[in-house]
């Protein structure tokens, strides 16, 4: 069964007055997210440099590695990626529903609160206010603001879905709604549930949150974008509606079980480790159905990759998604885990997921959406192309060196006759390559930021010209 978007399969009469989208919320979210991508990118470069030059800024408490690292992770995940995903959702949900966004005022208020959270995170983390939970570092008042902002965002999206004109909901809508429904429970577990517990029990809740922050927040909202932007960019119908259903419902069931795979061989019940391993392997089902669907959609359309930067980002993102989600189940196997766990393999794997796959989807979305919401052509396709090649080559350099380095490190650790410090010294060339790959990625980010801002500013310039002549 084939579905073309945004036209629904069972169309009611076309609305007599097609809705005029103002997209103010999308603009707010996207422009601030892209700026944080750049700002937090500086932090990223800095912490990569610290592996090569450990004394760098070493005597200033606010710039020590242990304070910059959470800022890098939180800033990229929530300041850039989630904010960008939220902005893009506010673009595509109204279009898939055939109505205006439920409330632009509410949306802009959400974006303002989100910016307050991110700025609060920057200052509090540099000052050392760290709660000590991976992904859950932020102080409680900021956590509460996240909850408030999320409820406001949820009201806006569900408000739009409920008033929709097209009865059938396209896949992207399910994934967006799924994200909205699961995130509160995942977030509350990781930021408030942990406070009621200690030790292993707490670690188990912490890892449930960490794993599902990626699996039930960034994955579904990222796939919502890919499901929308791949057919849109290639101007072709989605391959299979039924396959997308299998992908969605297996994701909804399987993902949440796998948190304990972060503690394989560790001090947590063996049976719980085994459950997490079994479900980690089952993750192959939702991943491969989705990836097959995307590839099949592109059948006969691959030539479009040559000229379409958004498609380049999207399809590279799909390949990275496939790879990272193959690594995931494999890493959870006890035998492989004994080599890769706790090594530099792990950041290689994590960056391929949130940078290689989900950030690529979001970047593709920005390149597609920004010209449309500002009603002007993209500032420069050439610059966009360069941003792709910088991020792609930097990304591959980053991922591949860390995988090789991580495996090598793991093998060395498993030979206790090698002193630990020798395994650190051995990794130094790897960290040097990682730093230079990081500068390539950062160059791509700079070009991306410049292109998006130049488009937005160009649009306001055009608007002024029109006003002046009128």
């Amino acid at each position, binding site marked *: 069964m084939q579905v073309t978007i945004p036209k629904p399969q069972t169309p009611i009469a076309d609305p007599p007055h097609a809705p005029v989208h103002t997209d103010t919320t999308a603009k707010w979210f996207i422009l601030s997210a892209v700026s944080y991508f750049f700002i937090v990118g500086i932090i990223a470069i800095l912490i990569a440099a610290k592996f090569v030059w450990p004394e760098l800024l070493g005597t200033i408490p606010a710039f020590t590695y242990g304070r910059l690292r959470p800022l890098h992770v939180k800033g990229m995940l929530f300041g850039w990626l989630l904010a960008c995903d939220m902005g893009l959702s506010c673009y595509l949900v109204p279009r898939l529903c055939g109505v205006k966004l439920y409330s632009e005022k509410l949306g802009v208020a959400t974006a303002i609160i989100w910016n307050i959270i991110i700025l609060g995170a920057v200052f509090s983390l540099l000052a050392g206010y760290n*709660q*000590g939970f991976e992904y859950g570092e932020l102080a409680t008042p900021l956590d509460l603001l996240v909850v408030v902002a999320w409820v406001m965002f949820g009201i806006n999206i569900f408000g739009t879905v409920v008033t929709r004109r097209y009865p059938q909901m396209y896949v992207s809508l399910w994934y967006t709604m799924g994200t909205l429904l699961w995130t509160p429970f995942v977030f509350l577990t990781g930021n408030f549930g942990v406070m009621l517990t200690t030790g292993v029990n707490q670690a188990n809740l912490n890892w449930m949150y960490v794993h599902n922050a990626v699996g039930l927040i960034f994955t579904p909202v990222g796939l919502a974008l890919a499901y929308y932007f791949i057919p849109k960019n290639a101007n072709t119908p989605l391959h299979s509606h039924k396959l997308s259903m299998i992908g969605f419902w297996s994701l909804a069931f399987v993902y949440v079980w796998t948190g304990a795979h972060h503690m394989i061989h560790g001090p947590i019940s063996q049976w719980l480790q085994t459950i997490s391993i079994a479900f980690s392997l089952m993750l192959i089902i939702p991943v491969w159905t989705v990836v097959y669907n995307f590839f099949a959609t592109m059948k006969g359309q691959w030539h479009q990759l040559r000229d379409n930067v958004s498609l380049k980002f999207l399809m590279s993102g799909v390949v990275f998604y496939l790879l990272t989600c193959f690594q995931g189940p494999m890493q959870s196997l006890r035998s492989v885990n004994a080599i890769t766990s706790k090594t530099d393999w792990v950041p290689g794997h994590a960056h391929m997921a949130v940078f290689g796959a989900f950030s690529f989807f979001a970047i593709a979305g920005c390149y597609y959406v920004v010209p449309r919401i500002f009603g002007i052509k993209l500032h420069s396709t050439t610059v966009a192309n360069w941003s792709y090649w910088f991020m792609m080559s930097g990304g591959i350099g980053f991922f591949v060196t860390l995988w090789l380095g991580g495996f090598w490190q793991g093998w060395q650790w498993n030979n206790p006759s090698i002193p630990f410090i020798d395994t650190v010294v051995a990794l130094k060339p790897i960290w040097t390559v990682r730093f230079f790959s990081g500068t390539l990625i950062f160059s791509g980010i700079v070009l991306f930021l410049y292109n998006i801002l130049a488009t937005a500013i160009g649009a306001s310039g055009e608007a002024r010209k029109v006003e002046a002549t009128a």
Partner: protein
Amino acid sequence: MLKKLDLNASIFVVFALIFFFIGGLLTTVVPPLVDKSWGRPFENHDPAKGVTGKLVPYTEEQLRGRAIYVREGCWYCHTQQTRTLLSDTKRSGWRGVDSPISTPDEFVNDSPHMFGTKRTGPDLSRVGGKYDTQWHRTHFRNPRDLVPGSVMPPFPWIANNEADFTAMVSYIQTLGRAKNWRPDNDYEK
């Protein structure tokens, strides 16, 4: 039924939450009810049953040190778990004696937990009693003075603040000590 799921938002919401909550509850709420060792502090006085010892609560000073450990993000690079791998028991071992593996009952007093996820530096689950105070002072001031090739940042603001430094070291010396694993009690102070 499948057809309804993408036509009716309410049915969709119900199923999405049910699917999520089956796994969600079974893997977070149920495990500590099944495995009681997660919440029972370690205590063993019978050498026949393995390593002896008793988990005692942290003192106020140790908790202050622990708060510094959390604040400076030590846990981003140091794990605190001797896993069920032979190489881990060797690496956490000391002077020819292998370390016992970490068990949940050793961590009942830990909040936030400091198990960690990445070993840029060595595991610290049994570091308590391995190095004396003078070693730690020099090491915090500049790790490379003692361990050439180390990439650990210097922490002069800990080494030069007597109260903070003492608290930090008193916390570090507790790590792994619930299990009295050294044969001759040869812990450094």
